[in-house]
């Protein structure tokens, strides 16, 4: 901020600051309210969740609802399934995206920009468009109702390639040329030289992919066709709703939701810089 702008802002009335602060607080409260209410409700007794007017803060917080969740769905198994789906998919996306991103940024080959445009176009294709044939395809290669069926079609995506190309393009050519002179293979250059210098971008992609696939619902629901052993936590969660309709299960549902939210939210709170970087990288580094 320049001296002129600074002196100007000093002249601004303090009422403006109060207004800004109030607006910020209101927005933050409105945004945080549903999550706070979810966690608080998960700690209430069944009677408290039904009270009118509502009990905002549980008087005697209890983990009863979490116990009940464990009685309805196999929480450990579901969390494990989610972890396997999200981790394996993320690992696949990282490898395929880095390799393709490197090729688009640092290699020359015919029809490069055409191929890139074609791949990037798929970024804007809503999954529902391909759902029906994909469901049949996965069924005919014998992967339906399995974790592999969820994972395999998602091991590469255009967003990852795009993001990796953006960041790898920023790595100096000299570094790569020097390694090529020494006879290093392209794969070796990618993983030994390029990867370390774009580590934050890789972390960003990893977190984004992990959270996206931890949270994803439509595709697992379609592939699994009721095979409860392979349910990720978000699908197990939907069973809580049908298990006992009505107000009685509010605490139960909120406990389940809290469990499903926890891993992505904790990751985010500690590593939010990377998430923000990946969005910014996709938006303005073009």
């Amino acid at each position, binding site marked *: 901020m320049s001296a002129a702008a600074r002196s100007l802002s000093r002249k601004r009335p303090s009422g403006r600051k109060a207004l*800004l602060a109030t607006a910020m607080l209101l927005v933050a409260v409105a945004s945080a309210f549903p999550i706070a209410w979810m966690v608080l409700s998960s700690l209430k007794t069944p009677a408290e969740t039904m009270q009118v007017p509502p009990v905002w803060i549980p008087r005697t917080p209890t983990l009863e609802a979490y116990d009940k969740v464990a009685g309805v769905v196999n929480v450990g198994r579901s969390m494990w399934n989610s972890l396997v789906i999200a981790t394996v998919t993320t690992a696949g996306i990282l490898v395929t995206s880095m390799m*393709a991103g490197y090729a688009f940024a640092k290699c020359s080959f015919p029809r490069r920009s055409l191929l890139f445009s074609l791949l990037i176009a798929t970024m804007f294709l809503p999954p529902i468009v*391909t*759902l029906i*044939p994909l469901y049949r395809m996965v069924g005919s290669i014998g992967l339906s109702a399995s974790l592999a069926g969820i994972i395999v079609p998602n091991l590469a995506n255009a967003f990852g390639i795009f993001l990796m190309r953006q960041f790898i393009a920023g790595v100096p050519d000299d570094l790569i040329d020097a390694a090529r002179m020494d006879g290093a293979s*392209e794969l070796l250059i990618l993983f030994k030289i390029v990867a370390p210098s774009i580590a934050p971008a890789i972390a960003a992609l990893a977190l984004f992919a992990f959270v996206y696939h931890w*949270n994803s619902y439509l595709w697992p629901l379609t592939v699994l066709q009721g095979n409860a052993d392979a349910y990720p936590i978000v699908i197990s969660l939907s069973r809580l709703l049908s298990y006992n309709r009505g107000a009685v299960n509010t605490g139960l549902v909120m406990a389940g939701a809290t469990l499903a939210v926890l891993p992505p939210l904790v990751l985010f709170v500690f590593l939010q810089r990377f998430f923000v970087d990946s969005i910014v990288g996709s938006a303005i580094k073009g």
Partner: protein
Amino acid sequence: MAKAFSASAGIMLAPAVTLIGVFVLLPMLLTIWLSFQDWSTQTPFSEASFVGLGNFHEIFGPTSVGRDFKTALLNTAIYTALSVVLILPLSVVFGLLVYQREVAGGTALRTVLFSTYMVPMIAVALVWSKLYSPSEGPLNQLLWLVGIGPQPWLSSPRSALISIVLLNVWQQVGYFTVLAIAGLTQIPGSLYEAATLDGANGREQFRFITLPLLRRTLLFSAVIAIINAVQVFEPVALITQGGPVGSTNVLTYHIRRVGIERAQGGLGSAMAVMLMLSLIVCVSALFAFVNRKDSE
């Protein structure tokens, strides 16, 4: 230099290109092909039989199939338009709140706003179904505190779709706020200083500097918001099942019900093709609109 031979480029590209080719591009082409076929999702692709435009006649025809599809198309259009119209201005306002330097706490606000984007849509749907609950739901209780009567939210055909829009806006606005902030950081501060010296007030600066220079960001945001909006599935599948009286029957939910649950693969594919075409038209129109403004 830094250009390798095509051979090694091929090796680097092979995994991603093969996977995307087989699991995205091929099914996309299959969707188009299947939309001209009479085909049950339960049977192999080889059992499909050509029916020309038959599926399209049916989904736009006067039968119940046609009525349901047209309702779903209209609901998705309304849902998408409302989402974009709410998300874009909010993201700019929130972006300005985070980006301003007069009051501390911008980064904390960004964290709170963006954290909702990490919550799985399924959990969002479940939590909001309880927030919207007519009697013990907190939203009606809060409205009561400020003197507004209880709203039916999800239980009335007139408000169910907008209730789902609000839930969607709540979850996604943080993501778009981050995009808006990215756009704001790209605007050179010198422009504001010059405008200040010329005597432009805050409102004029916003109108003549901030907004025009955010146009690219807003275009990108609008495209992403549209693509995200047509994918709405969880709140509909879990809370409303398309009701009451079809008021929340959106395309993603409807296509899956027809194509997977009822196994009418040809019909479902024709619907998916219509969705794809509508998207292409929307996004092209948006680009044309922004480019026309640019050349002015």
